[in-house]
């Protein structure tokens, strides 16, 4: 177990370095002048030069990168936005709850629809439900997130007027004029984004769960369970499900980790101020510290969820406990 943790730790550092270095190199290659943007429209060349120096943009790229690493390790700081001088830590702290609400709520939605459909269509392959599920899957896989989001916003939000079309409300109650907050408002405003996520992911998960359940149903130990005299439902719940959920856990961990790094399109369509829309905005403004900050956060999210997957795996499958 210790060996496993050490290995995992070094892997995480390596992943982190690669991701941030690539981000820096991309920004170095793009011909742009962040100092000019940071300074504003009415700047003299002298002031621009001053700004450039204060943002360390005059240093070679490897020194800038070193400075970024140093600040992060020494001060746990991701630096300051070029655009408005705000702390990147603060920006991310503001945006994470939005993206996290979107992703975790979406995951609950897509799992609660894909697990039952996946299992039922595995038990009755080629039935009407199975075929219906297949159509649903094809729509989900073929349609882009933006399109699904816009259609939902137009039909459910605008035409039917059942839900808000856009914006986010805080989960925890906050006071203030013109702000909405509280769990009910939070969920009410997030329904459409969650539905969008559900369409996107449920499709794949239905297929994945269906395939895994069918494969497990044909295992020898399932035949053994039936030969023991277990009923079909007992066979399904006690012998099939846990074994068939192993691959689903892997994919789920990866998807959630990745989506936390920014559900770009869904946030964009529903005007949610999360990491995804922040990433687009900052990239447009050449705001390197914010972009790198989000990359760092995404790395950490992916690493944490991969670790959680491993823990879940060891819990689900006793064969893994000995080999780690």
């Amino acid at each position: 177990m210790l060996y496993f943790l050490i290995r995992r730790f070094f892997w995480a550092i390596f992943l982190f370095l690669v991701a941030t270095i690539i981000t820096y190199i991309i920004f170095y290659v793009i011909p742009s002048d962040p100092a000019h943007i940071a300074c504003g429209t009415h700047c003299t060349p002298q002031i621009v030069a001053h700004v450039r120096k204060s943002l360390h943009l005059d240093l070679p790229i490897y020194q800038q990168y070193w400075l970024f690493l140093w600040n992060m390790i020494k001060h746990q700081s991701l630096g300051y936005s070029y655009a408005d001088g705000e702390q990147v830590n603060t920006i991310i702290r503001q945006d994470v709850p939005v993206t996290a609400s979107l992703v975790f709520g979406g995951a609950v939605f897509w799992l609660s629809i894909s697990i039952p459909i996946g299992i039922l269509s595995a038990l009755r392959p080629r039935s009407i439900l199975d075929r219906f599920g297949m159509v649903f899957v094809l729509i989900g896989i073929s349609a882009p997130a933006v399109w699904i989001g816009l259609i939902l916003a137009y039909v459910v939000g605008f035409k039917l007027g059942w839900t808000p079309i856009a914006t986010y409300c805080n989960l925890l109650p906050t006071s203030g004029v013109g702000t909405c907050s509280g769990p009910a408002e939070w969920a009410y405003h997030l329904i459409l984004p969650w539905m969008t996520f559900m369409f996107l992911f449920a499709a794949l998960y239905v297929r994945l769960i269906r395939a895994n359940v069918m494969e497990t149903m044909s295992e020898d130990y399932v035949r053994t369970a039936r030969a023991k005299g277990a009923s079909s439902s007992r066979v399904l719940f006690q012998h099939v499900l846990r074994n068939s959920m192993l691959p689903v856990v892997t994919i789920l961990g990866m998807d959630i980790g990745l989506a936390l790094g920014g559900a770009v399109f869904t946030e964009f369509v529903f005007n949610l101020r999360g990491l995804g829309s922040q990433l687009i905005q900052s990239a447009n403004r050449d705001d390197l510290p914010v972009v790198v900050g989000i990359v760092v956060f995404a790395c950490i999210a992916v690493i944490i969820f991969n670790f959680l997957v491993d823990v879940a795996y060891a819990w689900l499958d006793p064969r893994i406990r000995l080999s780690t």
Partner: protein
Amino acid sequence: MALLEVTDLNTRFRTDDGIVKAVSGVSFTVESGETLGVVGESGSGKSVTFLTLMGLVDRRHAEVSGSVRFDGQEILGASGKQLQKIRGRRIGMIFQDPMTSLNPVKKIGWQLEEAVLLHNDVTHDEARRRAIEILKEVEIPKADTRIDDYPHQFSGGMRQRVMIAMALINNPEVLIADEPTTALDVTTQAQILRLMTKLQEEHGMAIVMITHDLGVVAELSDDVLVMYGGRVVEQAEVDDLFTKPEMPYTWGLLGSLPRLDITSARLEQIPGQPPSLLHPPSGCAFNPRCAYAFDRCHEELPELRAGAVGEGHRFRCHLSDDERARIWEAKKASLGAAEGSAA
């Protein structure tokens, strides 16, 4: 009345390529306490026959007809609930591959207790006590601690003992063993067979030993069923079958059996492949591989008929009694001759 009486059992699987005739017109009986050996190649229908009578073939893809009477009661086509009461309690079953036949994510204690709790109204502690008891009976060392291990912590032979324990934990009247030793190495095979014989004496259950190993049959069985192409081609008491087999496929099987008392330069083999059950040969299914086939064998399926010994020994072959006797005598002589030349 026989304990298990199978009459004209047919199993057909619908596939995309057509209908697979896995089992055709199979009839036999199993008396309580006796051992029936069922021999045949892979794809001869021997496993499917017993999966069918246990109701373990997928009903959506299989058409089943005929009659299976267990203890006087028709169980073919019985409801799921009725079958669940019989499976695991009155008929136990063990399978070929012990490595994959136990659930990998459940402790073996859990799996044994499940078998008890499914059929008996007892507490968990009582179920666990019985599980430990049966593990001791199948000679698993340190049964009271090993009960909390997972299947992957056992060797193949030990897992097969667990499977046997699980099949016998409710004292069934019949144990169906589907190639229980095929996946094991030879020394372990011998141990498992000895264990099964011992348990049969103690529990008094009937055993159906499905195998392709004639050695196993010779050692354990009272009666033998030889299957080929989904049909019974010969059935006899074990001594009759070995001393006077009546049809060419059985001759081939006996000829391919390695024997230490006969030093033959080379084992005989049956040429060709097992027949396709999707497009079986017309007439006798064995005719493409039979050295003695003549016109009638290609046209007409031989009936299962009684030989010289009487109803106890039945076989399918168009060859006349004289011809068969002559061929078998010659075969016996050639086996003997091989011995002579080697000496």
